[in-house]
């Protein structure tokens, strides 16, 4: 029973994933290197502080049934 209803929710999530990934990839592609000053700012990085993210997840995953999905960091200027 659990897996069947999970499968239907998986289909919804799969559609959502495709839409979200497509949206993520459909932006203005030509952000030139000279335009990345603000993207390189520390406030624009996803998961800029791994300690803080890990501690946040540690607290929340012990209060909530859900977990995961935070991503693997990076982003911002893409200038590494």
């Amino acid at each position, binding site marked *: 029973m659990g897996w069947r209803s999970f499968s239907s929710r998986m289909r919804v999530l799969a559609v959502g994933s495709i839409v979200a990934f497509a*949206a993520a990839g459909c932006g203005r592609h030509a952000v030139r290197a000279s335009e990345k000053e603000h993207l390189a700012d520390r406030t624009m990085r996803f998961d800029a502080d791994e300690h803080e993210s890990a501690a946040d997840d540690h*607290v929340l995953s012990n209060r909530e049934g859900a977990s995961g999905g935070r991503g693997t960091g990076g982003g911002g200027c893409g200038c590494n």
Partner: protein
Amino acid sequence: MRLQLTGRSVLLAIAVAGSAPPARADDRIDLTTTWYLERRRGPEGGLSVVHPQLDFEVDAGDSVTIGAGYSADVVSGATASVFSVDAVASATPFDDVRHESHASITLKGSRSSLTVGGGAAAERDYTSINLAVAGKVDLPGKNTTLGLSYTHNFDHVCDRDNGMAVALERRALTGLETCKVSSVLVIDDTPGSTIWHDLDIETAQATLTQNLSPTLALQTSLFGQVLRGFQANPYRRVRVAGVEPQESLPDVRGRVALMVQANKFLPGLRSAVHGSVRGYSDTWGVNSLALEMAYSQYAGDALLLRLRGRIYQQTEANFFKDAFFYDTEGPAGAFFTGDRELAPIRNVLAGGRLSYIGFNEEGGTIWGVFDEVRLDLKGDLLLLDELPANPDSLNPAGIDSQFLSSGQLLDAFVLQLALHTAF
């Protein structure tokens, strides 16, 4: 209690796997201490967790980075040993210490990186070993980053030796038994007293990060996880039809989550707005949605203030019942649980962080050998609202006393102090 380590070790493995260094050219040391305090009803007081973390990362040549770290949890407080309509009646004090360490090596190319890492963790009734691998690549133009990671946990859980007893006859650990752990790698059963169960956890994640404009970045992450093995709290009992057996949960759980995050920089204000939404679903029937907003504001050259708010709501697991109904109706099939994480709940978080950022604009050092120093002070307030899983009108006992955290407005806060250095 040990399930805290389950989540922690998986999250750390993902963090290790995902920590392929971004734009950091410097070696670094990070030291963070987090204090979590949760109010709980009854004479035994609240729950306190002190969580120190220490990590370092050094470059070994132009294309190799080595990282290692240690963290611990020092836990003390009250827990309810029986899930019933009155949690305070079975509240008992407990304390525990967990140790965790990890290491990773990252190979970096001009547009890609590959990280391989692993970790080990132990406490008196739980051990964990994990292996993780992650890759990341910047697509041409360096506006799109694709990341993939996989982690496998080989965990073991100590339990009462219940032989072939059926669910309603199983006895819980009391804390007086000995779980033999001579090291993370060596565990031993004590026939007639305690045995160790396997718990394997596979976690995979895909992340796509896209620069949408010179001031807007978007990240989408898809997370999947399968847990196979013993997942109950071996200490927790549930009052079911007049008896109090050990909690009983399914052996397999599949989880999936989709998260979308966006960061928008506001140059005129020297600030940034952050937003995220996460949907989650699992095979136990827990579905949830989390929304988070944050605002970062520079004040001068050295101060950065961030304010954030988050709301979260989830449905209960298929087999979760309010305590009164387990006692009067019996279990839901073969399963019964008193885990608050499997109940219908709503969680609200509000907090702020103030950062001092010190660096030498001329490119030299600051504070001796360091190129950059950041000091963070952070505080979060948490409110937990427990909702009824069964009709209120049929529950004369209500749900206001079934958890130690029930019936409180402000139930927890988090205080964090961190020092980050690059040299």
